[in-house]
């Protein structure tokens, strides 16, 4: 892969977008928006920079800002339909256990979901994620740990996880 090989990163961007959006068409729209923004900012890409992280950063910020906009309009998560439309095809049927993890992941706040996916799926380090999200590395570690613990509890049907982390209308709420 050459340093500026965009194609090599497209599938990874689509994968990350699918984990965020849970809707294939919306995920590809998100990737397209990312590429359009990247073209407009091509001058800002540092030659010594990491193209993968730069593109992931644009995609992540585009998703987050779109989600915030949706929240402001009281149409939660409408940039990415968080419901159906992404049911696996029969031939792509994943094991029940995997689907349970996926369902639990969907219930996490996006700031936890994103770091979990970047680590467990994309194989990024917490330092890389901190750089990508412009956050202190301690914040990333904390989000990751809290997210994983919530995921563990949700996956195993532990009520404690669902009590403290439930997404309603795109907002985290404490349900006591």
């Amino acid at each position, binding site marked *: 892969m050459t340093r500026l090989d*965009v194609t090599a990163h*497209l599938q990874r961007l689509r994968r990350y977008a699918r984990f965020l959006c849970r809707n294939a068409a919306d995920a590809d729209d998100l990737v397209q928006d990312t*590429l359009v923004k990247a*073209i*407009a900012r091509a001058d800002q*890409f540092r030659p010594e920079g990491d193209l993968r992280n730069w593109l992931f950063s644009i995609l992540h910020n585009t998703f987050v800002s779109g989600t915030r906009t949706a929240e402001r309009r009281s149409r939660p998560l409408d940039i990415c339909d968080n419901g159906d439309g992404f049911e696996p095809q029969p031939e792509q049927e994943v094991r029940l256990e995997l689907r349970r993890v996926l369902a639990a992941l969907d219930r996490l706040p996006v700031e936890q979901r994103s770091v*979990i996916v970047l*680590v467990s799926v994309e194989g990024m380090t917490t330092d890389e994620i901190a750089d990508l999200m412009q956050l202190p590395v301690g914040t990333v*570690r904390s989000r990751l740990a809290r997210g*994983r613990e919530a995921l563990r509890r949700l996956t195993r049907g532990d009520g404690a996880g669902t009590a403290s982390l439930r997404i309603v209308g795109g907002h985290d709420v404490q349900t006591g």
Partner: protein
Amino acid sequence: MSRQVEDWELSAYVDGELPSHRMEEVRAAAELDARLRRRLDQLLADHHALGELGDSEQFQPREIPPRLARYGADLANALRASDRRPASSQLLPAPLTVWRQVAGLAAAAALGWGAASWAAPQQDDALSSFIDEAAEVHRVASVAPTFSREASASVIESLTRLFAHKLTPPDLSSEGFSLDRVDVAATDTGPAAVFYYTDPEARRLSLILSLDTPTIDSLDDGAAPRVTTHDGLAVSFGRHRDVAYALVGSLPEPNVRLLASRAAATLNN
């Protein structure tokens, strides 16, 4: 075991991000504490399950949609163009880069077309807007399904009436670009006809035609097209009779200028 295992350390253990001595301590603690061991096993299981999910076709389909492939190719071209620029110019915001290019070449403008290869958008706000709009039209163009020949013919007929010229989509096939579709764009400088081209490498070109009088008045009829960069895109523009045109793409500027020259020559023959 020197101290209790914190939650973030369990997570860092899963990723192998703890110092080696602490990794050993966490492992030893888990061997002594069944509850901790179970928690760790579950965290590891979730981690591996997500990795497995990520490798599944559900999340990593093999086919890349053509529209994304095209944008990807455009981005690669834009990055290569940016990469070739001197480091000092990359530090400048894009508008400043253009202004500096303008300033550097203004003195040479009087030498004729060859020297005046850079636009001077400050000469005319209308022209500057036209270039902005042309770049935007190219950038946001959704790569819709190719129009049928009949549909394209119908659009061209409408455009011909609108432009009061017989519009013939320029033939750029000798340069490897074929016409994908024809469209009308609503821009701040009025309606614009847009011809979208692609080549076998999925590189895109957009030819934007405008009847905006202030824009047309700021250009010399029949002069060779000028070229500028706009947010990483090369924009070659000029005037052919009563039509202002701009050809936009991520190709090197000389190539876009050459293609614009060829397009203009056949614009309304």
